[in-house]
């Protein structure tokens, strides 16, 4: 029996997550995650700046799905003000959010396979992701921390170059997904590393509040886009991929299938993209939210992300609470990793798709 430290800086933790492991040879007796190394007080920062000044923060909590996080924050302020963004803005929000979901899953794919010892897929994944980043950089001006949505709309409209580029990307990405199927999913080494490894039951997901691909990989069709529909998602036709096995392979398959579904959403939204303004006309210059307690949840790449704000009627929030999916997804690691071999625990940790700034925020 000995204690093994995984991290804070370890190639398999992609950030500064530390896992304190009590080992019995190669087997894990107890693995205790120690978060907090990259805590940046994002919630507290919300209490000393105006509603609009908090916007850039939302892109930096989970830097891989910045669009979703900004969407949730913008959505909650719009809900409090009773603002309704114009339809064009809503459609562009959906398109950019889904592009962001694919890019986030591609980073996960590369990093996850890197954890498992396969270097090549990372380069393929980053090549594809680069195309999304170029598209989004063209309209937002940034590659990662987009800060593109505004209360009541968007900061600027998309042009034809973006629409054409997105259509081309959808056409380009479909064969790439089947390439990943041949190169990675069907690979026997990957199958042996993932099938039946790191079982998570739906009961455990419920107990720890795990959401996103983790709960969908355990057979529960929980997706915020379906259970609490927001934006224009109810008008679009897409499936929620669910795999009941609960192992790392199921979570892998959920994400791969989700990319295909996101492509479907983008295609439909592009076809329906209405004309018109991208900013609501009645947005007040100085924002003062009516006193009260408001919530808004979105389906981020890692699961349910919810913002809860409390306003006392002033220009500055009274409280901003961020419910981040990575934190809940990490919390079940201790229970599920008991008795696993160390390399299998790395596969489990990777399949949870953690973003450490999102855990600590």
């Amino acid at each position, binding site marked *: 029996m000995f204690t093994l430290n995984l991290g804070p800086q370890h190639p398999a933790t992609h950030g500064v997550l530390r896992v304190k492991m009590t080992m019995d040879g190669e087997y894990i007796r107890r693995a205790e995650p120690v978060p907090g190394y990259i805590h940046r007080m994002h919630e507290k920062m919300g209490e000393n*700046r105006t509603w*609009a*000044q*908090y*916007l*850039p*923060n939302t892109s*930096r909590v989970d830097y891989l799905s910045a669009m979703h996080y900004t969407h949730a924050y913008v959505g909650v302020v719009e809900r409090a003000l009773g603002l309704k963004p114009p339809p064009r803005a809503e459609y562009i929000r959906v398109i950019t959010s889904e592009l962001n979901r694919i890019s986030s899953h591609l980073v996960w794919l590369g990093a996850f396979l890197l954890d498992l010892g396969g270097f*090549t897929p990372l380069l*393929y994944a980053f*090549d594809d992701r*680069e195309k999304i980043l170029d598209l989004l*950089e*063209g*309209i*937002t*001006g*940034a590659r990662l*921390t987009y*800060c593109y949505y505004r209360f009541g709309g968007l*900061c*600027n409209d998309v042009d034809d170059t973006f629409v054409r580029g997105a259509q081309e990307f959808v056409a380009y990405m479909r064969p790439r997904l089947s*390439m990943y199927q*041949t*190169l990675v999913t*069907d*690979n*026997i*080494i990957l199958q042996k590393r993932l099938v039946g490894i790191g079982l998570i039951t739906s009961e455990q997901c419920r107990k720890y509040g795990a959401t996103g691909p983790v709960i969908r990989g355990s057979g529960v069709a929980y997706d915020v886009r379906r259970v609490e529909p927001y934006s224009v998602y109810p008008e679009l036709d897409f499936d929620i991929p669910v795999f009941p096995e609960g192992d790392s392979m199921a979570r892998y398959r959920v994400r791969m299938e989700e990319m295909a579904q996101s492509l479907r959403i983008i295609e439909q939204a592009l076809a329906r993209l209405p004309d018109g303004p991208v900013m609501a006309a009645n947005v007040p210059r100085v924002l003062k939210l009516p006193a009260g307690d408001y919530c808004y949840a979105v389906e981020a790449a890692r699961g349910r992300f919810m913002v809860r704000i409390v306003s006392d009627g002033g220009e500055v929030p009274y409280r901003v609470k961020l419910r981040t999916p990575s934190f809940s997804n990490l919390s079940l690691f201790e229970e599920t990793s008991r008795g696993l071999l160390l390399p299998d625990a790395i596969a489990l940790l990777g399949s949870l798709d953690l973003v450490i700034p999102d855990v600590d925020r």
Partner: protein
Amino acid sequence: MKVPLRDLGRGLWSLLSGMRVTLGQFFKPTVTVHYPHQALKMPPRFRGHIELVRDPETGKAICYACKLCERACPSDCITVEGVKLEGDKKKSVTEYRLDFTKCSLCGACVEACKSNAIRFSHEYNLAGRSKEQFIMDLFKRLEAEGK
């Protein structure tokens, strides 16, 4: 340990199909650029650090130190000073200090500006050896450019 023959076959097949994908990639053009020798062009909306805009008619900065950007900035990295010259209706800017060490390039200042007096630059090669290099006076920069 005896390896089942089926596993051996599957292993060989997945190895070969993986190799086929890699081989296909081998004949495709390079996707990266050789950075210091070649550089990509930044898109028009690229958010670099901000810079002052010159009025094409007068040749001076449009900014009249209304300090809206200073108030909009979430990180307090902008300090604007201006004086009212004799005969002018508006103030003119004399100092526009940007503390780029604190800037997160959110663009709140550019959006707050009513007279389009600031814009994003397309500069991204901004490595430096000291902190002082990133505390820049944009007004002096504009003056120096004019000379």
